[in-house]
C-alpha cells in the first residue's frame, strides 16, 4: 500500500506524536507514556510515520529512539500554498472583472 505524508497527518494521535517529536527525540516508551492507549497501538502509529518518512527510529542498546523528520511536511506546505494561490487568483480575477465592468459604464 502506498503511503504518503497526507495519510500520516490524517490522524489526530499521529499529529500529536509529531508535535512531541518536533521538540525532542524520545524513546518509544517515552512517547507511549504521553497517551492513554496501549504501547502496541503507539508502535503502530510510529510505524506508519516511519513508512511515510516523517519519523526515524534508531536502536541504541535496549532503547529505540524516535526522531521527527520534518522535511517531508514541505509537500503538505506546497499543497496548501497551491490551494491558497487558487483562491487568491480567483478572487483577484473577480476584482479585475469588477474594474472592467465599471469602466464600461
Amino acid at each position, binding site marked *: 500500500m*502506498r503511503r*504518503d505524508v*497526507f*495519510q500520516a*497527518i*490524517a490522524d*489526530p494521535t499521529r*499529529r500529536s506524536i*509529531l*508535535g512531541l517529536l*518536533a*521538540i525532542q527525540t524520545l524513546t518509544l516508551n517515552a512517547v507511549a507514556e504521553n497517551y492513554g492507549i496501549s504501547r502496541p497501538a503507539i508502535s503502530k502509529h510510529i510505524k506508519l510515520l516511519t513508512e511515510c518518512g516523517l519519523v526515524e527510529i534508531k536502536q541504541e542498546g535496549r532503547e529505540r529512539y524516535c526522531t521527527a523528520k*520534518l522535511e517531508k*511536511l514541505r*509537500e*503538505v*506546505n506546497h*499543497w*496548501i500554498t*497551491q*490551494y*491558497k494561490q487558487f*483562491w*487568491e487568483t*480567483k*478572487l483577484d*480575477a*473577480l*476584482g*479585475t*472583472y*469588477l*474594474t472592467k*465592468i*465599471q469602466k464600461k459604464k
Partner: protein
Amino acid sequence: MEQDKTFSLTKVYQAPVETVWKAITEREQLREWYFDFPEDFKLEVGSTFDWYGGEPGGKQWLHRGKMVEIVENKKLVHTWEYPGYTGLSTVTWELKALDENTTQLIFTQEFTIPYDTSEEALRKENFIAGWNYIINTGLVEHLDKYQK
C-alpha cells in the same frame, strides 16, 4: 465553527455591493472570472449545479454544489462536493458595503466531512488528500514554531 476546519480570505473591491453581488451570483458574469456553470444554474435555495474544475492542464474534476442560503447583497452559501466520492465542504461569500462604492468580501470554505482518500486516482493527484489536510490542519503551523 472550529477554526482549523475553515479557510478564509478577505478582499475589498472598489464597486457597489449590488455590483459585486451580481458578479458572484449571475451565471453570465460568473463565467467571466470564476467557473462556467451550467444553464440550469439557479439562485434558489435547494437547487444544485455541476461544474468542472482542476489544475490547469490536469484532470478536470466534476464538482457539485447545492444552494444553502441566499441573502441578496449580503450572503451566499453553497455546498461543494465531488460526485461519486464522500466528503463535503461549504463555501460562504459574505458581502458588506463599506461605503457606496466599496465592498468587502469575506470568502470562507469550511470542511465538514473529510474527502475520500481510498480512491487511488484521487490520492495520486494528492488532490483530495490536500483537502483533508485542510480539515486536519494546524500541524504545520505548530511545527514551524520549533523549526526556527
